């Protein structure tokens, strides 16, 4: 089939402001991924089109973009899922709320700064086991935070959040998801510090439970639920 592409373009060395570039691709298969088609535009038609990508199967988190208005990983969207007619249009823009560097590439530094601010690392609650072996954890305790270990830091959630758009100070759902991963890990001993960080002005209370983030997550993490659990933990004063 034939597909029209409408892609938000901006080259800081040339353009005063962003514009829409239009491209037409023939011989598109319903099973093609949008990433492959963006590659075809770049490789066959316009080498200056710029995007990030790596794994091409939804696990590295490089290629979050807005496809027809919804945050997606371009490598995880098949043409057939967009329900296009022959000659139909796919619109691709950079994710919102982070500064655009060039075309579909945004500046990830503010996103990673928020991530780094929530102590996203293990702080052991107990001394090293005397037998030189692993710390033990029951399958039930392990299951408690399984969902939030899946995060690939793609920013689909944070850049679909109206509270984050309103204020870039808000740490955003991705950072909270990654804090959750440690807060609910029974091996970890820094729960209280993380809860303190997240109860600050920039923390969880900025979340108005608008639920944009959960459907945006390509890893199907229950983002809003994780945020809710962190809010409860703050109120409870612990895990």
């Amino acid at each position, binding site marked *: 089939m034939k597909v029209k592409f409408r892609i938000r373009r901006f080259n800081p060395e040339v353009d005063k402001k962003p514009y829409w570039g239009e491209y037409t691709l023939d011989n598109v298969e319903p099973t093609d991924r949008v990433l492959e088609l963006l590659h075809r535009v770049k490789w066959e038609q316009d*080498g*200056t089109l710029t995007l990030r990508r790596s*794994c091409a*199967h939804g696990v590295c988190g490089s290629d979050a973009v807005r496809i027809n208005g919804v945050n997606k990983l371009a490598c995880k969207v098949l043409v057939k899922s967009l329900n296009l007619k022959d000659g139909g249009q796919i619109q691709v823009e950079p994710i919102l709320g982070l500064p655009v560097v060039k075309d579909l590439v945004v500046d990830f530094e503010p996103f990673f700064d928020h991530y780094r601010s929530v102590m*996203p690392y293990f702080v052991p609650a107990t001394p090293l086991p005397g037998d030189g072996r692993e710390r033990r954890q029951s*399958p039930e305790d*392990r299951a408690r*935070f399984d969902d939030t*270990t*899946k995060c690939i830091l793609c920013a689909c959630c944070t850049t679909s959040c109206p509270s984050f758009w309103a204020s870039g100070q808000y740490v955003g759902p991705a950072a909270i998801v990654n804090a959750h991963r440690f807060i609910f890990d029974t091996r970890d001993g820094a729960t209280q510090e993380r809860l303190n960080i997240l109860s600050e002005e920039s923390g969880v209370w900025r979340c108005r439970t608008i639920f944009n983030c959960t459907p945006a997550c390509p890893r199907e993490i229950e983002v809003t639920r994780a945020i809710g659990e962190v809010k409860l933990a703050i109120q409870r004063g612990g895990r």
Partner: protein
Amino acid sequence: MDVQTHQFDVVVVGAGGAGMMAALYASRGAKTAVISKLYPTRSHTGTAQGGIGAALANLDEDHWEWHAFDTVKGGDYLTDQNAAETLAREAIDAVIELELMGLPFDRNPDGTISQRRFGGHTNNQTKKPVRRACHAADRTGHMILQTLYQNCIKEKVTFFDEYHAIDIITNDGKVCGIVAVCIDTGEIHVFHAKAVCFATGGWGRIWETTSNAHSLTGDGPALVWRAGLPLQDMEFFQFHPTGLYPVGLLITEAVRGEGGVLINDKGERFMERYAPTIKDLASRDVVARSIYLEVQAGRGIGGKRYVHLDVRPETVNRYLAEAGEDRRVDADYILSKLPDITDFCHTYLGIDPTKSPIPIQPTAHYGMGGIPTNLHAEVLNSGTGTVVPGLYAAGEVACVSVHGANRLGTNSLTDLIVFGRKAGKAMADYARQADFVPLPANPAGKIVAEIEGLRKSSGKTKPYVLRQEMQKVMMDHVSVFREAPGLQKALDTVRELKSRYQNDLVIEDRGMRFNTDLLEAWELGCMLDLAEITTVSAMERKESRGGHSREDYPKRDDVNYLVHTMAYPEKGQIRIAHDRPVDLSLGYQPAERVY
């Protein structure tokens, strides 16, 4: 052009599992920087699915000696036995270290790390599969990558994210740093260092069908080669038996570890014929060849180029019962152990693997060869083992050689941790006693001229055209099976592509900022170099061993080829010498490989 200069004791190029492990250790004793063309968490280690191998013996009796032997046998005896010993011995402690860093492994009821079966890992006495693969569902690599990045944040490791290394700087034959492009600004940065470690991962993108990320273009080996140093065992590239058809993305061996079986068009579990004892869990080269032969014999599904991987509970349970095992599975269990695989099948094919079989084909997966190193991750300048002072390599890019002619599943992740750690320690030690080698005058001059030349390329051929031709010819003639005429054809084609690359390329983006048109073209240059070296290495090995199967030389030839291949750059040519002996110090004599 402005060039910025930085000075660090240690520079690690690459932020996958090997690079970050090396950086964690190096930074404890030396001023260290990590340079990565991707954000660290985008590295390909994050896609590793099935597990990391270590004889923890949490569920079955197991010993590091068994793991070492399996590694040697899996490598078709080209594995250096001292390296296999190091890997298997230190694996145990390496996995424990990851757990202590916070890695959320799956757990057994007693709270210990959960383990499962994987191809080629056996109880050496009964020859039956042993549970050795430590895992976190089917996203073990993701957890390793995240855990290491988290620990790097905790220990305040310095990162230069989205910096692309494009040259090694040497002075008087000594390494003194690297040149990198800041991708965002296009500026050139010189990193003056005492020690440089390459941890740039694989180069599967040379082939058409691959499990590898777009970024796996072999920059590290190409840079080392261009610095005048040899590459080892490049003909050994693993084709993983189960790539999703037709996209090539990986379906982990853990599917078979959990009981999945391969089925041909006639409904036969054909691995019973090729590997009567461990069947679907034979090592990867064996299974990939079997699939290929089934397809050639017309027993692909519907006569096409794929077979089925069946992990439907009823199928798994039938074979478990036949094997006299008590274990039974249901759909929920499969889902809990293989959530990502289920998601891939659903997203890319619209099928549910607990209800329909998965179509699979072999896919280019892993480079056993690479930059030759010794057990301390020090790079060697020849088969006789002289070290290049200040140069290190670890992870998939390095050839220790632990994997020999064929890597066992789960041994790469182990390799990253064990040898990444060794590289880090060795570099910290080296930096303590070594001085900086002074930078030569205008250290980036030559590479800047090259890059500027590339940026202005104004021929007629777009890079993707050359890339696709290379990928196709490598897939047709330098994949699961090889023979002289095909190899010659591949070589001729690759050389023709190289000349078009030099004389007729066109780059459309002439800008400085985030110029991926330019950098992709530069990566293509690396891949063309490696495609040529791989093909020449394959031509010169006139035997079949592990991942290298010659139709014209179907037998293993231990008299002439129980030795590593070294490719040396010489006056613009490739010289092959079989001059790095295989270490046999564990005393395992080459035997016929039956599974």
